[in-house]
């Protein structure tokens, strides 16, 4: 009897695992399981409103919505806001912008930033049925109390050399830490006004880095010396997609950037912290992964005779190798034309490869980019 039960249990486990693998979409299975608990309501995440550029006066909200059980509905998003306690406005006007499930999108508020502006805002998502009737509305923050943001591009603080002080710059984002300078007593050579000003992100051309935020830190009078390092925290903003940052410094706008050692990167609060010994320009740069996507073929399934696989942006010296799923190399492409390198489905011997999945490896600028494609007859 025990033997039969053990055998039956083992079969059930093995069959269960096989069904799981065959489904090949475990997240969907998990999601279906969770739904047994009841209706999953939409949730708004990654919300914030911040000053992206003080000069262009762009105020930005980055939003993502998990539709929950409303995934079959269409949804629109807007921000209801008021400036300095004024009347409630709406951006964009009307029903708002159409959004998709779990896709990030941005809503920019109009140019109204003065030297110091208070904005109260609420993100509103309306879910509609096929007839366009609103069937569910969710907001961030939920309830009737809006989110408050204090927006500015410059802060000024009088700091006495003997006492030190904290100069705090709130870019408007209420969810993350502010930029600030923590000046210890006797760190400055004399009393001064310390100013933090957020500047427009510069065009900074590099294949590996791009600027995320830019600050100017200066003093009045401008001839003070920093006697011991100041703890500086810089908020790098909502938009970076990388988790790795570099802090750079230059004394004058015309100088070249120099790397500054970062003591801590706080991904939760979206800040980097460093000890600085000079006033000047501080730029936070995100390390950008070499853009693989541009080299990969956009069309991953090619039917023989209808099209070819196109590997874009490659130059003389670069190469593409095609392998079977068994690991055998069947084609090497080391030159192309104006449209880039192409694979037409032929092997090195001129015969067409058989239908199936193939692994490609692109060698570009000494880097290897791999992926899969399917050739079909």
């Amino acid at each position, binding site marked *: 009897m*025990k*033997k039969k039960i*053990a*055998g039956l249990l*083992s*079969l059930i486990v*093995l069959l269960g*695992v*096989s069904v799981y*693998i*065959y489904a*090949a*979409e475990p997240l969907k299975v998990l999601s279906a399981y969770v739904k047994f608990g009841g209706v999953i309501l939409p949730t708004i995440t990654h919300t914030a409103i911040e000053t992206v550029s003080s000069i262009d006066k762009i105020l930005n909200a980055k939003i993502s919505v998990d539709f929950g059980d409303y995934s079959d509905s269409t949804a629109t998003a807007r921000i209801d806001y008021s400036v300095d306690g004024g009347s409630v406005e709406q951006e964009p006007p009307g029903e708002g912008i159409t959004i998709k499930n779990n896709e990030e999108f941005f809503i920019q508020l109009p140019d109204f930033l003065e030297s110091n502006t208070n904005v109260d805002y609420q993100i509103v998502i309306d879910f509609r049925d096929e007839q366009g009737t609103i069937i569910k509305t969710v907001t961030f923050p939920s309830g009737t109390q809006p989110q408050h943001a204090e927006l500015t591009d410059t802060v000024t603080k009088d700091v006495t050399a003997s006492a030190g002080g904290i100069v705090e710059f709130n870019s408007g984002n209420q969810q993350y830490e502010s930029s600030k300078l923590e000046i210890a007593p006797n760190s400055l050579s004399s009393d001064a006004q310390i100013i933090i000003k957020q500047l427009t992100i510069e065009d900074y051309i590099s294949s590996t880095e791009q600027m995320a935020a830019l600050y100017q830190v200066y003093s009045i009078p401008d001839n003070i010396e920093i006697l011991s390092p100041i703890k500086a925290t810089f908020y790098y903003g909502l938009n970076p997609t990388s988790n790795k940052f570099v802090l750079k410094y230059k004394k004058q706008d015309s100088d070249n950037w120099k790397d500054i050692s970062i003591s801590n990167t706080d991904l939760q609060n979206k800040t980097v912290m460093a000890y600085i010994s000079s006033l000047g320009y501080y730029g936070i740069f995100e390390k950008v992964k070499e853009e*693989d996507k541009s080299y*990969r073929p956009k*069309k*991953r*399934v090619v*039917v*023989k*005779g*209808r*099209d070819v696989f196109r590997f874009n942006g490659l130059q003389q010296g670069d190469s593409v190798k095609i*392998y*079977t*799923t*068994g*690991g*055998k*190399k069947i084609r090497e492409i080391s030159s192309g034309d104006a449209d880039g390198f192409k694979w037409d489905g032929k092997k090195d011997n001129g*015969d*067409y*490869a*058989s*239908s*199936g*999945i193939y*692994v490609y*490896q692109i060698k570009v600028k000494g880097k*290897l*980019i*791999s*992926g*899969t*494609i*399917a050739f*079909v*007859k």
Partner: protein
Amino acid sequence: MKKVFLVLSFLILLVSAQTVFAAFEDTYWGVRALGMGGAFTAVVNDANAPLYNIAGIANCVQKEITLMGSRLFTGLDGVEISANYLGAVYPIADEWGSVSFAWSSLGTPALARYDTFNLGYARKINDITGIDDYYVNLSAGLNIKYLRQEINFDEEDKDLSNSKGAVTGDIGILATFENGLRLGFSSKYLTSPDIGYEEKDSVSNMNVLGIGYFSELLPYVNIPTFTADLDLIFIDGELKFRLGLESYVLDDKLGIRLGGREEAINIGFGYEFTFLNDSTLVIDYAFELPFEIEESYGSHFIALSFRFN
């Protein structure tokens, strides 16, 4: 004896020169077989047999089910290929033979997927051939298989159906000699079915000859429970080979395997847990390191098998 070799020689002459359908090659099925580099045509004595040589299921003495999962070419960002296998063997009786079911699947999410469903039957044929089983144990089998490919076409190719399927079959013969020699022959995709979308695209007939040797204690070097297999694969007018070695140690509980083919080298091991008298749970792992694909940490395969009466 002459009859056996004549039959095998004749079958080898059936070698096809057509292009085989890469997705349905039996490269990645069965973890024990993979530990031996895929050289398994003359070994075939467990639930991995249906895709290598269906005749082998006639030698299974217990019911068996095996399930395999894998991850190919780890370390390569952008490459997500998995191969899965489910095999089950049900021995009815010596005089009636054994039946089997097997499913194999190779695919990349949102790109393409290739599935094979197999229903097999095999039995010992000494009584039919009149050959004394004291010298050689002969078995033969037939696999009926359904092949299915599913492609996620781009918008401009949406006029093509997403999936295509076809029915075909395999035959297999296995001869195990009293002196340890084993010979296996498997002819796969006998009808060369067409599963093309835009044009005729046949899954070509593929013939594999396996030459194996088994010894309970390999002479001179004293390797216990030793098995070796060399598979010669006639494919696309070319000859390929796979080589595999296996030995069981620790009272035949731990299997250690080594193998390879032109494109990769394999190692593997498996441990058998016996419980409830005759029931056995087997955990197998195999690792394959490709020679030609760059910067890959290799492919990993793991299987759970259960044998019972």
